[in-house]
């Protein structure tokens, strides 16, 4: 399908991109393009209007780096899933993100899709949301005046990923003494977008769960912490029955209707996630 015409802009710096973004009318950011260009085609197919301007961040090389300094991991917003999967820094300091990236879409999409595009594309089901919430990551934006604006990942998704600034990088502290488990439920058959994903973070000390964080994305809304599940887990003992006990008191009706297939699968996913975390800590 040929795309509807638009004006293509390729700024060479983030500051330039942010300024352009603020001044141009009817504009979309192209950060990888796997979501945006596909959306443009769908809009054209439905006879809907498509943007007049596209700002591509492709030529800003500085946005593609991944590095660790003084146990702070920095990931440029234009780092692709592939960059994340092959990153030596992340393999050492945060293999969780690699596990998440490996499940995203297909090989070609992983070669093209960026972490920045994934979380700022305003699609609720995108997969880097839950791990970034569980990592308490900070999102560094550049405003139209060139200033840096930092917002916590959890807060960003609470405001439905709305922003008029350009995402430059993501930072978080390299996790220590804590385990992560990430699980997702594909919509149909793999490879597929998830209908539900969970990132569980906790450490186990003296038979109890500590520093529990449960980031959930049920695909219909952006990722957020589920404090009810966190509190429930914090009360459990770390034995073989933990997963079953978790389900005893949980009310999952906010994620899926009672008796629905989705709720049954979410239940078993939660149970398996907790059991896997316990296994990791042994």
């Amino acid at each position, binding site marked *: *399908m*040929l*795309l*509807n*015409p*638009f*004006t*293509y802009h*390729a700024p060479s710096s983030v500051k330039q991109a942010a300024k352009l973004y603020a001044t141009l009318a009817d504009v979309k950011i*192209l950060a990888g*393009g*796997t979501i945006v*260009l*596909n959306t443009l*085609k*769908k809009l054209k*197919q439905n006879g809907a209007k498509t943007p007049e301007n*596209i700002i*591509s961040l*492709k030529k800003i090389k500085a946005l593609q780096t991944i590095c660790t300094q003084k146990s702070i991991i920095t990931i440029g917003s234009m780092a692709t899933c*592939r960059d994340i999967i092959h990153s030596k820094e992340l393999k050492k300091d945060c293999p969780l993100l690699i596990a998440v990236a490996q499940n995203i*879409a*297909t*090989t*070609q*999409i992983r*070669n*093209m899709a960026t972490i920045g595009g994934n979380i700022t594309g305003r699609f609720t089901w995108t997969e880097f949301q839950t791990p970034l919430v569980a990592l308490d990551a900070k999102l560094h934006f550049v405003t139209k005046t060139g200033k840096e604006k930092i917002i916590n990942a959890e807060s960003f998704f609470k405001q439905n990923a709305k922003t008029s600034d350009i995402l430059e990088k993501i930072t978080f502290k390299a996790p220590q003494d804590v385990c992560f488990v990430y699980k997702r439920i594909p919509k149909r058959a*793999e*490879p597929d977008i998830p209908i539900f994903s969970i990132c569980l973070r906790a450490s186990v000390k003296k038979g109890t769960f500590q520093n529990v964080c449960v980031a959930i994305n049920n695909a219909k809304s952006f990722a957020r912490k589920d404090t009810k599940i966190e509190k429930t887990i914090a009360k459990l003992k770390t034995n073989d029955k933990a997963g079953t006990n978790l389900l005893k008191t949980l009310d999952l009706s906010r994620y899926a209707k009672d008796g629905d297939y989705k709720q049954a699968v979410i239940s078993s996913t939660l149970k398996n996630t907790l059991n896997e975390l316990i296994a990791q800590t042994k």
Partner: protein
Amino acid sequence: MTKLKINNRIYDLALKGHETLLEVLRDILGLTGTKTACDEAECGACTVLINGKAILSCITLAMDVENDDITTIEGISSGDDLHPIQQAFLDKGAVQCGFCAPGFILSTKALLDENPRPDLDEIKKSLDGHLCRCGGYLKIFDAIEDAAKKLRNE
């Protein structure tokens, strides 16, 4: 003018900016080996290599890949000789209607250039972005294992 380097040849093109790489290849340059079978980045038939990595040309803007190394199916045989991957696809019966073949062959090249000894799971995963309706994939796996052996000179 936009400079595109395709199969080691430089093309100077007057592009408007909204052209996909696929459109440039097929409609402007007449390189019709790259196909497309969907409008939603699902089929993999439009796969080309950018700097050796498999990407979908249907959702790549041509102007975004200026100065990158672009390889299409037309660029992997050398002279009269087929690339060992192409030969293996023929030898192992991995090609039926052939519409999906260029995409699969290029993804295979990207895989084997990076990982000369892939196991079956790695092969399957590297092809997860491709659809084949004729063949059922198994002979493609055979072809890739065969090509990998030949490229390792075994």
